[in-house]
């Protein structure tokens, strides 16, 4: 995913294209959706709370959270 994103961006820049003529526009939408999803999962609130009601949800949360934080380490 990172490679595809990178290639898309470089392709856009190298060709000097803007989003109007490039498939980068879908990358932009996907990128924003990805950020929103991460935000929803990680930020304490109703969404992460409901996610954590299932075992799989807890695993997903812990996996993503461990990528950014070490909450239990002082």
């Amino acid at each position, binding site marked *: 995913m990172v490679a595809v994103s990178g290639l898309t*961006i470089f392709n856009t820049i190298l060709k000097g294209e803007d989003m109007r003529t490039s498939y*980068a*526009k879908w990358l*932009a939408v996907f990128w924003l959706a990805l950020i*929103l999803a991460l*935000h929803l999962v990680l*930020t304490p609130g109703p969404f992460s709370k409901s996610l954590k009601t299932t075992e799989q949800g807890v695993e997903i949360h812990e996996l993503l959270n461990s990528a*950014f934080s070490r909450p239990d380490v002082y």
Partner: protein
Amino acid sequence: MFVFDAIAALPVWAIYSLAAWAAGVWLLRHLAPSYLEGRVSNPGLALALGLGSFGALWSLLALVPDGMQPFSVWAVLIVSLLLGANPLYAYLKTFSFRAMLPQQKAVRWLALPLVALLLIAPLLTWYPLGTDANSFYFAQAKLVAYTRQFVPLPGYEGFAQIPLPAEFTYTALMLIGNEFAARLINATELWACVLLMASIAQACRLSNTGIWLSVLILLGSTSVTLLVTDGKTDLYGGMLGLAAVYAFISAPSLAGRQVALMGVLSGFAVLAKLSFLPVLVPMLATLLVWKAIAGSTLKAALPVVFRAGSAIAVLVILCCIPLILKNWLAYGEPFAPFLFLSAAHDDGLLGQDWFSADATRWILLTYPLVWLFGQYPMQHGVISPLLLAGLPALLMVRWKQLDWRNDAALVLAVAGLLGLLVWAVLYPSVIAPRYIFPALLAFVPLAARGIEMTWQSLEGSRIAYSSYAALLLAFAILPLTYHKTEAKYALRWIERGPFRSYVDYIWQGLQVAEGVVPEGSRMLLVGWERSPLQPATLNCLITEKEIGGAAILSEHKKPEDVWRDIYLAGGRVMLVNVAGRKDFADKIDVNRKPDWLDVGAGKINEFYTFYTLTPKKGAPEPVWKCAPSKRDVWEPTLNEMTKNG
């Protein structure tokens, strides 16, 4: 009855905020009138300047015996309203509310939930206090309101060396109103932050849409909105940090008056939050150099930078006078918390290290994402990850065509990056956005521009454009959903009264223990939270330092000696937060006590256990007691009988 307290708090808060705004407009008119011209959204600057000036004034008044009085607070507010009424009225006449409204239809939908959040902000301020505010910030303010002058909060004497303008602001509002009024000021500060962010975005030449996107990023940052609900004082600092940045970025020139405003606001910002110092110095220096070389050469700009920089530094030092006086009078340490004449007073406030080396390494490895997604203890929220959505879009910019000299958003982001780097070097483990708001929020205008660029480029494809708008709308609605429950809770708390606006188990623990303290005796509190205590009890608290500090826990100290020391200090009740202070709870033993003392214990709840100390025949007289002073303030007093004995 408590509902009336809440209702009564509203006009007091409104008058305070209006007086601060009037004072700010009056000061701007005399200090730097150019800031009042032609800018639609700069009420934030006037509000920040007014609130900052009030904070500085209270910091001076709190040093005068009995200086903090309802009368003195009212006098300042009335004078401010009288001085500022005309300039404020003249300003409001030219103020265009319509110019602030979103112009694009899609942006109006984004603005709706943001405005709704701003409207419920006053209610959110009444949510039960968080741990830090409950332990120090609010309790310190409450104590000053009681003693009418600065007295370090027992148990936090070392921490009280920090400047306290925001806490004194709470005090002023408690004196003329109540605790509800004090907490409402966080709503005013949030509004000021939003207006200042809009002003900064405007100074960066962002469009109306870009300005609203900047506001969206600010309000989507939980590190900002959480501060409204928990009673901490960092919004005051954040507001002044933004005001200082705005003064620098939008200064029409580096002439005397503008520089004076820049210096005063920088001083206020640093005093409001000392951790801003290492980030603001490189940031503001960058902005100063950028301002000086605009339309000039570096060689010609250097003397201007030196002159302006020196003047700003002098003004920052002048702003520190209340802090110097406070720490000199209270501790004999005029340069605390930076330099100490005696090592005994150094609580190591500036040498903070929060986590282990391993965790710190991980924090640095995950920079800057950790500021957007991290969930560390004490982090207290994140900056909106929308920064990530906007900044990569700037890769599409034709850099060769970029006029960086005139690109305030880019220069501000570079300044923010420098501030962030300095922070990463000096305090890598301190991962709390509130500590470095000016640096993190410096990326907002550039990111907002990136989001706007991306959004505009999607106009050709209706589905992509609408999907992007829907995702942005989801970001705008999120803060409301996060705080919806808090708003409901806050409403319920109002009925329970200002003194019950605390978390239940804390309230219960402190109430039960306080209820059994005999008049004239003192209480030892082994725990952090203390705001719900009556001010007299608060002022008479026995501190752990008083009975030996860390030595209490040493194996050489017998439990019998601990009970004896508490009793001699005037203590008849001890309350222990057994969940948080297991070290202390393990040390004490009700069966190992002096023969002349009875010790009883009672579990209040899962967190608190209280102990009563009752002297038997043959018990010595306590050395200390809690007694009213000549000013009718209950305070620790030497027992006459032991003094004579």
